[in-house]
C-alpha cells in the first residue's frame, strides 16, 4: 500500500511538471506573449518594454527553468496583470471555488441518489425512463447553456435570484445547479447499476427472508453497499468540479479560481496561469489517488490487488 501511494505521488509530480511545460508552450502558440500583453493599440516601444520588464526576451527554456527554480524555492511570482503576488491572488479566490465545487457535488448527490435508487427499484419502468432522461439531458447540455436558461427563468422572469456576483448565498444557487447537474448523471448511473446488482445478492435475499421491512432492506443493506464506489467517484468528480468551474464562474462573474484562470488566459498573465493550471492538475491527481486509497479502504478485495 505504501509503495502504491509513493508511486502515485511520484506520478502526481510528473503530471504537474508535464502539465506546466505543456501550458508554458501552448500559450506561446497563440502568438507573441509580449504583443498580447501590450494590447491591440500598442506600438513597438510598448511591446519592447513589456518584453524587457517580464524577461520575455530570454529563450523559452531559460524562462521555464527560471520559473521552475522560483517555484521550488516557494516563490509563485507576481501577476503581470494585477501586479500582486500570485499566492495572494490564488488564496483569495480559492474559497469561492471550493464553496462552488462542494455545493455542486452536494447538489449532484442530492438528485442522483434518490433517482438512482428509484430507477433501480423498477428497472425499465416509467420512473427509470424519467431518471434516464434527466441523466441524458444533464450530460448532453453544455453547462453554460443551462446557466443561461437558469438566468432566464430565475433572474429575468421570476426575479428570484441575482444574475451575477458572489456577495450572498443566493449568488451561488444557479452556478451550483448548472455545475452540479452536469456531474449528477455519472452518480445516478453508478447507483442504479450498483443497486440492481446488490438487490439481487444473496445477503439481500437473506435479509428479506428474515422479515426485515422493505425500506430497511433497501436503505440499510442495499444502498449502503451500492454507495461504496460512489464515495470514490465523488472525490474524483470534486477534482473535475474545481477545474470545470472556469466557464460557470465566468458566466456568473463569480470571483473564484476559475474566473482567475479565465482572466489570466485572456491577459496572457503567465505567472498566474502557470500556477492555477499546475495547482488544478495536482489537486486532480491527488484526489484521484485519494479516491483509490479510499476505495481500497472500503473494499478489501481491491486492497489485496495493490
Amino acid at each position, binding site marked *: 500500500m505504501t509503495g502504491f501511494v509513493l508511486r502515485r505521488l511520484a506520478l502526481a509530480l510528473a503530471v504537474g511538471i508535464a502539465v506546466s511545460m505543456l501550458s508554458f508552450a501552448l500559450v506561446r502558440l497563440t*502568438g507573441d506573449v509580449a504583443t498580447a500583453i501590450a494590447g491591440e493599440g500598442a*506600438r513597438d516601444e*510598448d511591446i519592447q518594454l513589456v518584453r524587457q520588464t517580464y524577461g520575455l526576451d530570454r529563450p523559452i527554456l531559460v524562462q521555464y527553468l527560471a520559473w521552475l527554480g522560483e517555484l521550488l524555492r516557494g516563490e509563485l511570482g507576481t501577476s503581470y*496583470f494585477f501586479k500582486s503576488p500570485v499566492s495572494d491572488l490564488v488564496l483569495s479566490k480559492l474559497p469561492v471555488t471550493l464553496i462552488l465545487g462542494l455545493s455542486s457535488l452536494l447538489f449532484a448527490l442530492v438528485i442522483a441518489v434518490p433517482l438512482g435508487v428509484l430507477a433501480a427499484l423498477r428497472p425499465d419502468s416509467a420512473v427509470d425512463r424519467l431518471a434516464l432522461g434527466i441523466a441524458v439531458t444533464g450530460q448532453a447540455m453544455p453547462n453554460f447553456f443551462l446557466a443561461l436558461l437558469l438566468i432566464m427563468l430565475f433572474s429575468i422572469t421570476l426575479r428570484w435570484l441575482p*444574475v*451575477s*456576483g458572489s456577495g450572498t448565498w443566493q449568488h451561488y444557487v444557479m452556478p451550483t445547479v448548472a455545475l452540479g447537474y452536469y456531474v449528477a448523471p455519472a452518480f445516478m448511473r453508478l447507483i442504479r447499476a450498483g443497486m440492481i446488482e446488490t438487490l439481487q445478492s444473496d445477503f439481500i435475499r437473506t435479509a428479506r427472508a428474515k422479515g426485515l421491512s422493505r425500506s430497511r432492506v433497501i436503505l440499510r443493506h442495499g444502498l449502503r453497499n451500492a454507495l461504496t464506489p460512489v464515495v470514490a467517484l465523488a472525490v474524483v468528480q470534486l477534482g473535475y468540479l474545481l477545474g470545470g468551474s472556469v466557464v460557470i464562474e465566468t458566466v456568473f462573474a463569480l470571483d473564484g479560481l476559475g474566473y482567475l484562470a479565465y*482572466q489570466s488566459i485572456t491577459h496572457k498573465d503567465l505567472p498566474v496561469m502557470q500556477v492555477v493550471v499546475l495547482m488544478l492538475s495536482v489537486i486532480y491527481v491527488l484526489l484521484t489517488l485519494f479516491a483509490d486509497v479510499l476505495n481500497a479502504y472500503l473494499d478489501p478485495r481491491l486492497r489485496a490487488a495493490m
Partner: protein
Amino acid sequence: MRRTIRALLVPLLLAGSPALADKASNSIRFAYDQVPENIDPYFNNVRAGVIISQHVWDTLIYRDPTSGAYRGQLATAWRYLDDKTLELDLRTGVKFHDGTEFTAEDVVFTLTYASKPENKATTQANVNWIAKVEAVTPHKVRIHTKQAFPAAIDYLSGPLVMHPAKYYERVGPKGMNEKPVGSGPFRVASHVIGKSLTLERNPDYFKDSPKPAAKVGKVEIRFIPDRQTQMAEVMAGGLDFIMNVPKDQAEQIGAVPGFQARSGETMRIAFLHFNALPDGPVEAFRDERVRRAFNHAINKEALTKELVGGGSRALVTPCFYGQFGCTDEGATRYAYDPAKAKALLQEAGHASGLSVDFYAYRERQQAEAVINDLQAVGIKANLRYLQYAAMRDQMRANKVGISFQTWGSNSVSDVSASTPVYFGGGSDDVSRDGEIQALLRTGDTSVDPEARKVAYRKALALITERAYTVPLYTVPNHYVASANLNFAVYPDETPRFWEMTWK
C-alpha cells in the same frame, strides 16, 4: 456554436419582463467586460480605463466631443513659445478629492513621473514626446517636447490626466489603483480590484469645468466578462447601461418596452492593408493594378449600410473623419465596379484569377462579406482568422500579403495617431513609400496647423492613388440601456455619466 446558442437564447431572454430603472436612487449601474490592470490611467490601455479616467480625473485641456474644439479644463489658456515649448496657465481654486489644491507642482510631478521610461507607463507613445516639464509660477507651467509635436494638445486633452503630486509621490501607481484620488466630477467611494468600482458625485467639483457637475449621485461599475451575462443583468434589472452589444441583439432588446438601444460611429476604422514590399509574400500586391482591382471589387457602401449599420460611414481614406488632418479631398475614389476589377486583374496577368491568404482578427462577418465580393471577380481569398497577437507576429515577420485591419487611434483625435502607424515607416508600414513617409513626418512635426493639413492631405491622396489600402468603414458601437435613462453616444466610446439623467 455559441453564436447559434445566442441566436436561440436572445428571444428567450426577451420573453422576460422589462427591467425597472434605478431611477429612485438616482444612480447608474454599468458593466464592462474588461478589467483594467490598474485604474491609474497611465498604467492601463483598455477602454474601461479610459472611461474611469474621464470621470475620476481631469486633464489640462478638454476636447469637446461634438464640435472638436479645445477648451480649458485644468488649464485656462495655452500658447506655443516656440516649436518645442508649450506654456499653460493653470486654473486656480481647483481641489483634488483629498482636499489638496491643484497647482503647477502637480502638473510637473505627474508628467515627469509618467514620461520617465523607468516608470514603465503602459502606452509610451502617450508620454514619450515630453522632454521636460517646469513650473514657471504656482499656476503656470511649460512643457518642453523632444521635437515639434503639434498633437500635444490632443494628448493633453485625452490620456494625460493630472494626479495630486504629494499623494502620488507617496503611494505610486499601486496606491493610486487601490485608493484613487483625482479632481474629476466623481470620486471613488470604493474599488474592489478586479470586481467593481463605485463612484460618487464630487460635490466640490469646480463650476467652470467644461465637464458639467454630475446629475446622478452614484455610478456603480462592475466588471462582468461575459456579454450574455451583462445582457441578462440588464433584462433582470441589475444594470442600467451596457455597451459593445452585438448589433442584432441590441436591436432586439431595444424593441422591448422598458429598454432602449442606440448605436454610434466610433473612431475605430476598418481597412484592408496590402503588403507591397519588394520582398513581400504575395508578388501580385507589388502591382498597383492588382491593388486597384481589390478597391473596385469591394462594395463597401453596401457593406457599410447593410451589414455594419449603426451610424457607420464608408471611408475613402485610412483615418477617422473627425480627426485633425483627416480628409478625403483630393483622394482617389474607387467606385464599386467588378468589371473594371476583372479588367485590371487581366491587365496585370491574372486573367485566370488569384488566390491569396486573407488575414483577419475581428469583424469576421464583414471579412467574410469582403471575401465574397473578391470571389465574384475571380479572387480566391482564404480566410486565416487569428488572434490579434498572432496576426501581428505574422505581419511583422513579413508573412502577410493582405490583412483586414481595424485601428482605434487610442482615442486621439489627430491623424498623427492613425495613418502614420500604418504608412509612416514604423513596423506596421508594409508599403514603405518614402514620399508618403516624408509627408506624414511633416504633418506630425509641423506646428503650423495649415502646413499640417496640407501635408496630410497630400499623403492621404498618394496612399489612395497608389492603392496601398482599401479603406472600408467606421466601426460602430451599440449600447443598451433602460428606457428612462437620458444619454448620448460619442465617437470616442466614452459614456459621459456626468451628463446622464433619469427621465
